[in-house]
């Protein structure tokens, strides 16, 4: 969505994920990029090169933090050390919002380091929303939760994934990081219509959109972030943008990472849809 309380009243355009193979290119060539998304955990450290690079990036670019291990959906309390380090980083980057996944990944203090799917139950929605609120209150910035790609569904689920997402963000009063590639992957793996998902989510809460590539296997699709964005995902993105209006958009490319120019070129393809939206609004 255009500037609102879920994105810290910003109007960011197209960004790309800040990845180590591109550090040198970015710092030496200083390409024009609207913003970078960083993986928070890579910089929640005491010192060294990653923080040195980040500080140089911060001098020239806008940065948004995206996490992979807050596990809003884990039944346990947030890890205090994690929160303390995250808050330090938030102060450093001045990120206008912070995102992490609507999933679980730890139990009894043991971490799987994976984004495990939630059971879509009312109990899970209530506990997850409560945790999102706790984290937001501690960090004092807007939070957006991202839908994950998944390969399994639970018998205990009481609603669809998009209903669960809406339930959580309404109860937590937070934003959504809508990953249209994840919607496509999950739709293929679970047999639902991805457009139904995009049409039913609370568009006014969409803070940011993720686009990415995936890999097809014989019996399922895996969210691998190692390819350009595929056409069906662009179509979902187009529909999402029609609903949300101009929204900060980010291309994720995390494996078999090509040159900076190639990644950036791929990300900028989103402009054709964002430009259409701007035109529609103007008309």
């Amino acid at each position, binding site marked *: 969505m255009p500037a609102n309380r879920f994105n810290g009243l910003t109007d960011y355009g197209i960004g790309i994920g800040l990845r180590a193979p591109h550090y040198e290119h970015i710092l030496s060539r200083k390409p024009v990029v609207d913003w970078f998304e960083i993986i928070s*955990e890579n910089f*929640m*450290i*005491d*010192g*060294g*090169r*990653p*923080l*040195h690079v980040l500080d140089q990036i911060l001098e020239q670019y806008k940065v948004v933090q995206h996490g992979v*291990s*807050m596990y809003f959906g*884990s*039944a*346990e309390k947030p*890890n205090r*050390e*994690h929160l303390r380090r995250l808050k330090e980083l938030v102060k450093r980057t001045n990120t206008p919002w912070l995102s992490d996944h609507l999933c*679980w990944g*730890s*139990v*009894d*203090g*043991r*971490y*799987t*380091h*994976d984004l*495990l799917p939630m*059971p879509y*139950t009312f*109990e*899970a929605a209530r*506990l997850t929303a409560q945790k999102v609120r706790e984290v937001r209150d501690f960090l004092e910035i807007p939070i957006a939760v991202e839908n994950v790609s998944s*390969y*399994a*569904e*639970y*018998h*205990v689920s009481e609603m669809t994934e998009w209903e669960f997402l809406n339930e959580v963000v309404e109860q937590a009063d937070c934003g959504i990081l809508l990953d249209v590639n994840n919607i496509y992957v999950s739709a293929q*793996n*679970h*047999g639902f219509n991805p457009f139904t998902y995009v049409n039913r989510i609370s568009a006014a809460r969409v803070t940011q959109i993720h686009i990415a590539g995936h890999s097809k296997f014989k*019996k*399922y699709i*895996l969210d691998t972030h190692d390819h350009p964005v595929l056409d069906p995902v662009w179509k979902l993105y187009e529909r999402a943008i029609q609903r949300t209006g101009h929204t900060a958009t980010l291309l994720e490319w995390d494996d078999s990472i090509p040159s900076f120019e190639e990644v950036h070129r791929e990300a900028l393809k989103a402009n054709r849809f964002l430009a259409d939206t701007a035109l529609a609004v103007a008309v």
Partner: protein
Amino acid sequence: MTLVSLQRAIARAVMQPLTSSERMRRSAPDGSSMSAYTARFIKPNDRLTSLERLEIYNRQYWFRLLSSMVEDFPGLRAVVGSKRFDAMCTAYLSEYPSRSFTLRNLGTGLEGWLRKHPHWLRGSRLLALDMLRLEWADVEAFDGQAKAAFRAEDLEGIAGPELTLGIQPYVRLLKLHYPVDDLLLAVKTREDEGISFASNAVLDRRKHFEVQAVARQKPARVFLAVHRLDFSVYFRRISHEEYVLLSSLRNGKSVQRSIESAFHKSAVPPADRALSVQHSFQTWATLGWFCQPDEKLRAIKNK
């Protein structure tokens, strides 16, 4: 079923080690069949059974964790062999699953665990433990805290018998039984060369090289400072006296007491010691290793 009980049940299955053919085990954590166990929680679909769906997560878990261990400990892997390394890490992570939000800390407890389970290291126990300590020091030196460094001129005029100096947290001091620094650099160089040519022939040559390099290792007392300069990690060989001196300073002892400890029973002629100390201090100050001492530590240690 509550959220936490479901998550415990799923985590137990996901974190259970894979079979030798990298598939999900057929017996579940509770002793029942894995098919029945997974069917209790996971819906099948028209292409995959409940077990097959959860198996995706089970495999991802182990692939992710083992590749992280390989990335952090290529030297240890070369010493114990790749198959044994994978089996050893699987046993370690089964007993001590990650308790940190970051994969960076995955190897935190490995040294302690290996000391309890030395059979994993067969005849190369000291060599393997040396390598592990070096590689963990490498991790800590890479992203350890850097305090404001004392420059050489900051030290001028403040010398006195009770002067204490801190050592930068990112500087790690090691006493080793083998020259594993040379071995690790050789393994890493070979690895980097292999990245662009990841054919079986290259991998076979690398494995052969590692076996040969490990076999050539002869015991030798080595003192090492693993440190960071311009954001790159370096291994700097130091003398026994320098190792004792730096360790003593780190422990909060005064400069005078640290120098006394360093040259206790030293073979360095007394006439040469002052110049040696002066040279060492100049080098360390130039490298930025000195910082404000930990006041609490100094107060305790000098009592």
